[in-house]
């Protein structure tokens, strides 16, 4: 039996494994899968492995033998990146600050909105649509509008409104004040992402049986206890999902920085590099300087960071589940 790759489960029913199971699927099944698999292999799998290979090379795609010979450099791209590239360290630090701020605040805002708009009535449905609108609007268009809000000296909208309200007396140089760069990016992220998170949290909230709350009320639990002992624990899977996807998205921030933060000559990352993050830095290395091997190394370091954080997040959640 073993030689036939056919195993029996606990019920004594045989199940096929490996190639036999694959080949029994039928021609039509695989022919339907083939277009996707083909495109996936060409456009996703191959580039991923190619970039891994390039990350160990000095590579600029032109590879002129006399002037710029391409070839293996071993771990040099990674060691330079990690040990001595101050600009990458700055980008990494900014990304970390941004991810922490954007993910935590977005989740808090999403959860608050979901709880506030949970009751299903017309007014709440309208408000949900309004809060969800940024998620279905072109991010480039939104970013350009925000650039207009924060840009300018006296006629930037933020300055105009704050001055009209008497909150500030002189215009603030929003995009030219280094300490404001990350907070502005976090604000834009929360504004744009809270609506999407709200929808996910609403789905999670609606999946919690109302009988739990009714029982808790009978037991004398107040709103705080109901949230702490029912809502929060049962929303944990949604939180994990929102947290992981939010973290991945936050690490990948690019167009906002590219569009609204002014670039220095020949570079990207805003005034004094205060808005420089990992993906803009990757773009700078790869597409401004055409150091494709080095940029690939940046991409794989980013992958490793996201992978480890996601793993920690999943493990922590599992541990909490086990504790329960």
């Amino acid at each position, binding site marked *: 039996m073993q030689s036939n790759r056919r195993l029996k489960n606990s019920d004594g029913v045989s199940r096929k494994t490996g190639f036999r199971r694959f080949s029994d699927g039928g021609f039509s099944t695989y022919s339907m899968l083939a277009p996707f698999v083909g495109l996936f292999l060409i456009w996703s799998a191959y580039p991923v492995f190619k970039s891994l290979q390039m990350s160990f090379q000095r590579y600029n795609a032109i590879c002129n033998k006399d002037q710029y010979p391409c070839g293996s450099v071993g771990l040099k791209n990674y060691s330079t990146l990690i040990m001595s590239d101050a600009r990458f360290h700055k980008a990494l630090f900014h990304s970390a600050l941004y991810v922490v701020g954007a993910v935590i605040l977005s989740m808090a805002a999403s959860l608050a909105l979901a709880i506030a708009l949970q009751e299903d009535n017309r007014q709440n449905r309208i408000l949900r649509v309004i809060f969800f609108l940024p998620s279905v609007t072109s991010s480039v268009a939104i970013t350009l509008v925000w650039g207009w809000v924060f*840009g300018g000296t006296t006629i930037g909208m933020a300055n105009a409104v704050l001055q009209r309200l008497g909150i500030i007396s002189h215009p603030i140089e929003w995009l030219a004040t280094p300490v404001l760069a990350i907070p502005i990016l976090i604000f834009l992220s929360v504004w744009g992402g809270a609506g999407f998170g709200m929808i996910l949290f609403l789905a999670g909230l609606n999946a919690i049986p109302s009988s739990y709350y009714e029982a808790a009320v009978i037991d004398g639990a107040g709103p705080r206890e109901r949230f702490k002992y029912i809502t929060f624990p049962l929303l944990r899977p949604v939180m994990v999902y929102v947290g992981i996807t939010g973290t991945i998205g936050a690490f990948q921030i690019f167009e906002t920085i590219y569009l609204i933060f002014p670039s220095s*000559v020949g570079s990207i990352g805003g*005034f004094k590099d205060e808005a420089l993050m990992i993906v803009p830095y990757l773009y700078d290395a790869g597409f401004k300087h055409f150091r494709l091997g080095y940029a690939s190394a940046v991409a794989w370091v980013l992958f490793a960071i996201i992978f480890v954080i996601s793993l920690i997040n999943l493990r922590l959640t599992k541990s909490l589940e086990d504790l329960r």
Partner: protein
Amino acid sequence: MKRLGAIALAISMAAGAVFSTSAHAAAKPTLTIWATGGDADKAVMQVAADLFAKANNVNVKVEAISWGDGYAKVLAAAAAKSGPDVFTGGLSWGISAGNKGALADLRALGVSNTVQPLVAPQIYKALIGYKATKVYAVPFDLTLMMMFYDKTTLAKAGISAAPTTIAEFNAAAAKLKATSGITAPVYNEWGNGDWLGFFSWLYSMGGSLYDSKCQVSINNAKGVAALTQFKKLYTDFGALKPGVADWTLNDNLKKGTYGIGFSGNFQASSFYTYYKDYKTWSAAPVPAAPGSKSTAFIGGRGISIMGYISNSQKSLAAKFIKTLYNADVVKAMNVVGAAQNAIFLSPVSAFADTISSYPADVLATIKSQLKDAQGPPNCNGWEDSQNDVTTALQSYMFGSTDVQTALDKAAAVMKSHL
């Protein structure tokens, strides 16, 4: 049946006509040019292309590519071995892309020998790598840093002439600041807060980024004086920091909100060929320190030939580039440039006279400033140092770092890339 036959005959005739036309067109060599800039730059290049096409019985196709991603597009074309035959782009692109193996050697094609004697030596030098044996780009056009000033606003502040020295400039800016109605005496439109804006102050104080042997010299006493002066524009004279745009700059310039500004000659194009109603604004050489020459930054675009094209295409491309230094071609480009608000400033200084749309005093300033202007350094690693140098300069200008430390930081970066 007859009807079907007639249709078949019509189709075959039409197909024959189409294929014979395309075969005829395909017989002509085609030169593809990427002109970095906007539609106006494309239009200016198209003039030269049309003249060349007519004279040589070839097709010349001009396409515009944007400044933002132009360099990446050129390198991508080189990697794919598909794209233009010729392109115009930033001054540093030639050295940078050439050293990556993307471009043809213009010395071997006989272009540099023709062009070098015709153009200003300092701009030619900027396109050739230090101690380089190959030439990957020659100057296509120039962009010159100039000082613009509003005669009416200066008169209102009791200033009778444009400042020529740095001391006079500081005094004039202080007077402007004290005059009511002038909210910001100085604006800085080109190279705002970065190395490019700093460049003219540094060289006009007798300093330099590198010395003649490409040893880093940015952090000497002259560098300190120049950076201290550059910072004053922002701290004392109201220049807007990078990232703070004045969206109503043109209106404010007309209203007299600003007195003095630093920008490229493209500002003159805007004043005198596009809006045409900035008659109170004139131009003067950038201020200099006593004993030093007024030395403005000179940028512009270089023109290169891609390395992957065939030898016959390279010869054709080389022939085309040589025509760009012909007086009649430049004149034709100037006429279109004036109409498109994109004055073509040829690297052949003598051709500046063919620009008829600038007022005489502005044209005189351009010609005098061109004599001592300096292009970006051609030393190894400058391309890779620019960003960190700007960051180091800004750490003093807009941060808490002291001036010497900031310049030492910039120098360290430049040395590390040598």
